[in-house]
């Protein structure tokens, strides 16, 4: 059988059958305080939407017809198309702290366990759902930290931390910086603001072929490069179906953002905020160091 002894002066030792130290006053156990000192409460962890803007791609190419035929009904190779996207801007955001409760002075450790259900999901990212990294089960948070979302471009986490004897919630969300325009692939939506538009104010009326992406300010293309990541499709209108004169014959610039058959630039449905709600149990403790 095991025993408890103080064969080493001043040291209490609890031993197993084979002399294994179960714990001692030199190597004390991890102690959690009595249940009356625990915090057992509801928790809501909310992450706000990211900063966003709209990118717009307008393409038109008009080549004098080379196919047989004459007159206004001869085949034309002119085509006109548009795509509009929601873009997410880079950021590093820390939210809080928010006080959850207090624990007895002197405690230097908290055993944190949460069970959270995501009650507000982000809009799909690039047509894929954003699954929470934690299931709706109890999870232990060593050090109090928990990553909850990760995509190709963002991370979200929260921390349950001690500040004195106050237990606080801090939330973090971060979106990667895509770097300077020189780092972007030419012709990609990240390479926006570099449209080779030559018409007045970038209006394509009467211009010949051109293409490109640009970010939208108000209802038209804005100027210089703006950092962002394609996140969700707003609308795509395919070529040669713009309802122009002559059936499928496109009207010049019809899908330019200033024209009558433009793609939508309303991205109000693309809300990437998320909220996790559930229960948190905090057991304060003391570890002798």
């Amino acid at each position: 059988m095991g025993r408890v002894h103080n064969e080493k002066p001043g040291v209490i030792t609890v031993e197993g059958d084979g002399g294994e130290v179960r714990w001692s006053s030199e190597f004390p156990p991890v102690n959690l305080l009595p249940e009356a000192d625990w915090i057992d409460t509801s928790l809501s962890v909310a992450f706000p939407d990211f900063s966003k803007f709209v990118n717009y791609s307008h393409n038109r190419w008009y080549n004098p017809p080379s196919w047989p035929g004459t007159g206004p009904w001869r085949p034309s190779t002119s085509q006109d198309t548009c795509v509009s996207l929601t873009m997410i801007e880079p950021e590093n955001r820390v939210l809080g702290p928010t006080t959850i409760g207090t624990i007895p002075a002197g405690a230097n450790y908290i055993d944190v366990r949460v069970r959270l259900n995501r009650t507000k999901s982000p809009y799909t990212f690039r047509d894929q759902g954003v699954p929470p990294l934690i299931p709706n089960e109890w999870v232990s948070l060593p050090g109090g930290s928990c990553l909850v979302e990760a995509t190709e471009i963002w991370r979200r986490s929260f921390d349950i931390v001690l500040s004195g004897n106050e237990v606080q919630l801090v939330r973090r969300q971060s979106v990667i910086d895509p770097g300077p325009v020189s780092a972007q692939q030419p012709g990609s939506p990240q390479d926006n603001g570099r449209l080779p538009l030559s018409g007045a104010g970038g209006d394509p009326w009467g211009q010949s072929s051109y293409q490109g992406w640009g970010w939208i300010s108000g209802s038209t293309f804005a100027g210089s490069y703006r950092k962002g990541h394609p996140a969700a499709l707003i609308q795509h209108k395919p070529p040669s179906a713009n309802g122009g004169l002559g059936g499928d014959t496109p009207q010049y610039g019809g899908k330019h953002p200033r024209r009558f058959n433009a793609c939508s630039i309303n991205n109000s449905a693309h809300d990437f905020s998320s909220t996790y709600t559930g229960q948190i149990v905090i057991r304060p403790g003391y570890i002798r160091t």
Partner: protein
Amino acid sequence: MIAVLRGFPAEGIVACFDEAPGGGDWRDINAPRNAPAKNPAAHVSRVHWHSEFFQYELAMPIQTVTVEHPALAGRSIYWGYNLVYDGNNPVSTTGYLVPGRVATASHTLVNHGLDYVPLAFVAYGGRMLMPGVAVQTASAGRSRFVSPYITPGAVGLREVYNSSSSGLGAVSRAYQVMVFRVPVEDASLPLFSGGGGETIIGRGKVRTSRTYARREGGGASPFNIDQARTVDLNNGRARIATGGSVTTEAGYGGAFTAPPFVPVGV
């Protein structure tokens, strides 16, 4: 400091502690010297163990479990068109190539059979796992994140993984699992006894036949208890610091350092 182990049968308390100043009769729980036994929460720095406290009692030997994580095919779709044809001549246009797909899976690591939700630590690569640690990364943002979870029957592992235009390969990963029960007092057991084949303290809260999480003799162990936050985010990427070691995702731009920790053994 000289540690003492004292029982106070009238109060149903037994404690191992360093005496507080003030002296008094060592048999009297109201004596100043016994203040850590009478009011442990107010004297936590003097208490090594107390029958009102709770400890982590190892519920089963440390388990090593290998998980075969599945592969995920790549994906490329277009928003808009990749190429539009002018007659027979392809004319490039400006769609957006949408890369990748995402998937989830869950794995049972250990069936603990305790019928309640115990504390469980899961380690990978000699480090404690917290929710959302990447155990596999590849170019173009391909990653595999895992999160341990606990149910009344099992310790499980959820994974969220994603590909890019290229696939994410299958991998095998070994995890160590440590499951703890939290012992409670059993009124039928003695406050302090050496009978019955083992020594029992605090009506069963401590038994010499059981093993408890305790401060390790020195050096890091796979089960270091961190004493502050372990995750930082910067530039859309994470740095995870546990047990004094940091794991940094490519692209992280911050300067987070590892929090203090206590190596824990059993």
